[in-house]
C-alpha cells in the first residue's frame, strides 16, 4: 500500500530515484536542483541506494558521465536547471542520438542575464530540439510519479530515448506537499530492472558515435525524428498502467472545464493550478472559460491539443519564455502553426508571463481571459504581449 506523507518535492523525487534502483547518479549542483542531488548523495552515503554517485566538476561532465554509464548498461539519473542545461546542451543532443535511456530531472529556472535563480521555462525550451522526450509536471505528486514513468518509457526497447521530467523551480521543487509514496512492491511491478538493448562489452564489441557523412546524416536524423514520434503510444501506455496501479491517470494534455468553454487558457507547469482557481472564479461569474495544460511537451501532443482547443473561440497561450525578435513564445508559435491547416480554428493569442520568478496571479489569468476576447475583435496584427511589465 502506498503511504501519504508531507515531504519536500525534491526529497520525494530523490526517494523515487532510490525506489527505481538507479545504478549511477552523475550531477553538478545548481539552484534550484540541489536538494534532489544532496538527498541522493545522502542515500548513497547511508547505503540506502546502491549506486555510484559521481560528483562531477560540471554539468557538461554530468551529461558526459551519464552517457558513458548508460552505454555501459547502467540505469542513470541526473538533474539540472537553466545554466546547467545550457552548459551540457551539446552533450544532451548526443545522448538522444546514441539512443541512451537516461532520465534527467529539471527544476526549471530562468537563463541569465541578468542572473536569476527563479523559475521560468528557459531551460525546457533550450532542450526542446535535442531529441529528448519531455514532460512537465504541475505538482509534486506528478513529479514523483513521473520518475517511474520516465524509466518505463525511456528503457522500452521500442523507444530507447532519454527523457527530461520538468518541474518548476522552487514553486514545485522546494514545496512541502502531501505526496503518496509508492510501495516498493508496486514500483517493482511497474518498473522492471533495466534490460539493455546493447551495451559496451568487450565480448561483443560495438562502435558507438561514429562519423556521419552527408550520405547518412539525414537518415540518422530522420530515424531520431521517427523514434521520438513513435514513443507516444508507449508514453500513453505507461500512464495508463500507472493509473491502473495507483489510481492516478495522466494525459498528454489535461483539460479543466474546456468542453463548453468559449475561451481556453493554455498553460504548462505549476501555473496551471492558479489558472484553474481563476477559472473557478470566472465560471462563478458566468464566463465560459477553461484551462488546457500541456503535460507532454515532446513529442508534442498534436491530436490532444487540437481536440482540446478546436471548439473554443478564443485561446490564450501562456508562455514562460520568449524568443526574442520572433513571434512570441515557443508554445504559442507551435500551437498556432498546428491550427493553421485546420478547417476551423480559434483566435490564438500569446501571453508571455512569469519570467524569472514573476508571479502569475489569479487576476492575471482573469485579465488574459478577458483580453484575448477583446484582442480578437480588435483586428490587431499583434501576436503576443508580455504581461505584468512594471513601468
Amino acid at each position: 500500500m502506498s503511504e501519504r506523507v508531507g515531504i519536500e518535492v525534491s526529497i520525494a523525487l530523490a526517494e523515487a530515484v532510490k525506489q527505481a534502483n538507479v545504478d549511477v547518479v552523475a550531477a553538478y549542483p545548481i539552484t534550484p536542483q540541489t536538494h534532489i542531488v544532496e538527498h541522493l548523495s545522502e542515500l548513497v552515503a547511508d547505503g540506502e541506494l546502491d549506486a555510484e554517485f559521481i560528483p562531477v566538476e560540471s554539468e557538461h561532465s554530468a551529461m558526459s558521465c551519464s552517457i558513458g554509464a548508460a552505454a555501459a548498461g547502467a540505469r542513470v539519473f541526473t538533474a539540472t536547471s537553466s545554466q546547467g542545461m545550457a552548459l551540457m546542451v551539446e552533450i544532451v543532443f548526443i545522448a538522444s542520438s546514441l539512443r541512451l535511456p537516461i532520465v534527467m530531472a529539471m527544476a526549471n529556472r530562468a537563463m541569465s542575464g541578468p542572473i536569476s535563480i527563479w523559475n521560468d521555462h528557459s531551460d525546457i525550451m533550450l532542450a526542446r530540439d535535442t531529441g529528448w522526450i519531455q514532460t512537465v509536471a504541475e505538482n509534486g505528486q506528478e513529479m514523483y510519479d513521473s520518475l517511474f514513468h520516465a524509466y518505463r518509457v525511456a528503457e522500452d526497447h521500442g523507444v530507447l530515448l532519454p527523457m527530461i521530467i520538468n518541474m518548476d523551480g522552487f514553486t514545485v521543487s522546494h514545496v512541502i506537499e502531501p505526496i503518496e509514496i509508492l510501495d516498493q512492491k508496486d514500483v517493482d511491478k511497474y518498473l522492471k530492472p533495466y534490460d539493455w538493448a546493447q551495451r559496451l562489452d568487450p565480448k561483443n564489441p560495438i562502435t558507438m558515435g561514429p562519423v556521419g557523412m552527408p550520405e547518412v546524416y539525414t537518415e540518422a536524423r530522420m530515424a531520431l525524428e521517427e523514434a521520438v514520434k513513435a514513443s507516444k503510444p508507449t508514453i500513453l501506455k505507461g500512464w495508463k498502467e500507472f493509473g491502473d496501479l495507483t489510481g492516478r491517470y495522466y494525459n498528454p494534455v489535461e483539460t479543466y472545464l474546456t468542453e463548453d468553454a468559449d475561451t481556453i487558457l493554455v498553460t504548462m507547469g505549476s501555473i496551471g493550478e492558479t489558472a484553474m482557481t481563476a477559472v473557478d472564479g470566472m465560471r462563478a461569474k458566468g464566463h465560459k472559460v477553461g484551462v488546457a495544460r500541456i503535460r507532454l511537451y515532446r513529442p508534442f501532443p498534436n491530436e490532444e491539443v487540437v481536440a482540446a482547443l478546436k471548439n473554443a473561440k478564443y485561446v490564450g497561450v501562456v508562455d514562460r519564455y520568449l524568443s526574442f525578435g520572433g513571434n512570441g513564445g515557443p508554445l504559442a508559435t507551435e500551437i498556432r502553426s498546428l491550427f493553421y491547416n485546420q478547417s476551423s480554428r480559434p483566435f490564438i493569442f500569446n501571453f508571455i508571463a512569469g519570467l524569472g520568478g514573476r508571479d502569475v496571479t489569479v487576476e492575471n489569468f482573469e485579465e488574459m481571459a478577458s483580453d484575448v476576447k477583446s484582442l480578437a475583435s480588435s483586428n490587431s496584427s499583434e501576436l503576443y504581449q508580455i504581461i505584468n511589465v512594471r513601468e
Partner: protein
Amino acid sequence: MGTATAALKDFQKYSMKKLPRVEPLAPGHRACQGCTEVLALRQVMKAIGDNVIVCSATGCMEIITSPWPQTAWRTPWLHVAFENAAAVASGVESGYKALIRKGRIKDENTVFMAVAGDGGTADIGLQALSGALERGHNFLYVCLDNEAYMNTGIQRSSSTPYGAMTTTSPPGKQSIGQATLKKDVAAIAAAHNIPYVATACPAYPVDLMNKAKKAATIPGPAYLHVFSPCCTGWRLAPERSVEAARLAVETRVFPLYEVIDGNWILSKDVKSPKPVQEYLQHQRRFRHLTEDDIKTIQEQVDAKYERLLQRIGQTSSGAEGSSEE
C-alpha cells in the same frame, strides 16, 4: 608501498622479442601517410589488448577510424564529443563498477581508456580530465600530442611549441609564430597525485607499450602523454615522422619519464644530447626561425630538462634508464 608500486611488483615487461600479437585497432583506417598518432594508438592498443573499452574524443583518430558504416575498432568504442573523453570514460567505469557490485555483470578486469589529442587534452578537455583524475576513477587517459589542432587544419593549441608556425600562429613581421611555451600537461596530471603518469613516443615502441600496459594495470587513474609527430601539420616528409619522434627524445625536446606514486623516474637518460637544430631542421613549421631563435629554443629545452632532472633528484634515487633500444 604506493598503489602503483604495489600493482607493478610482478610486472611482466614486453620486449622486442616478446611483443603482443593482438591488434585491437584494425588496419584499413584513413590516417595520413606517416601518421605517428595512429602508430602510437596501435602500440597502445596492442599493449592493452582487447579487454578494453575505448572512449575517444573528437579528432583525427576518431574520424579516421569510424566513418559509418565502417569501423577500425575491434574493441568497444564510444565517441561522444571533443572535450569530454575523460568524463565519458569515468561514466563507463562507474557504470561497470555499479553493475559488478550489484551482480548484474561479471568482473572481468576490463580496462577503461580515454584517448584525445593535445587540443582535447591541454585546452578544451583539461577540466574534464582534471575532474576525472581528481575523482580517482580506475582508467587510463592517453593524450596523443601532435602539437596543434590538426583535424581542423593545423591551428595552434596550448601544446604547440614556441616558434612553431600554425594556421593561427603564423610567423610575420610582428610574430615569431607560436609565442608561448608548450603547456606541460603530464606535470599537471602528476599534480593530481595520481598513481601513474608517463611520457612516451612511438619511436620507442617497447617503452611506449610497457608504459601503456602499466597504466592499464595500475588501479586508479593513469595518464600517458604520447608525443606524436604529424607530417601534415608539421610540414614533414612522411618517412621522417618516426625519426622526428626519436630526435625529440635525443635532443631532450621531449624527455621520456614516469611518475610512479609521485616518484619521478627518467626512462631514457639522454647524457649527450643532440642540438635542437637537428630536430627542428626537417620540419617546415620551424623554417622561418633565425639562428637566434633556435638558440632561444635550445636554452628553453636545456632549462626545462634541468628542471626535470631536479624533480627526479628530489623524488628518487635517479634514472632507471632505457635498456631495450
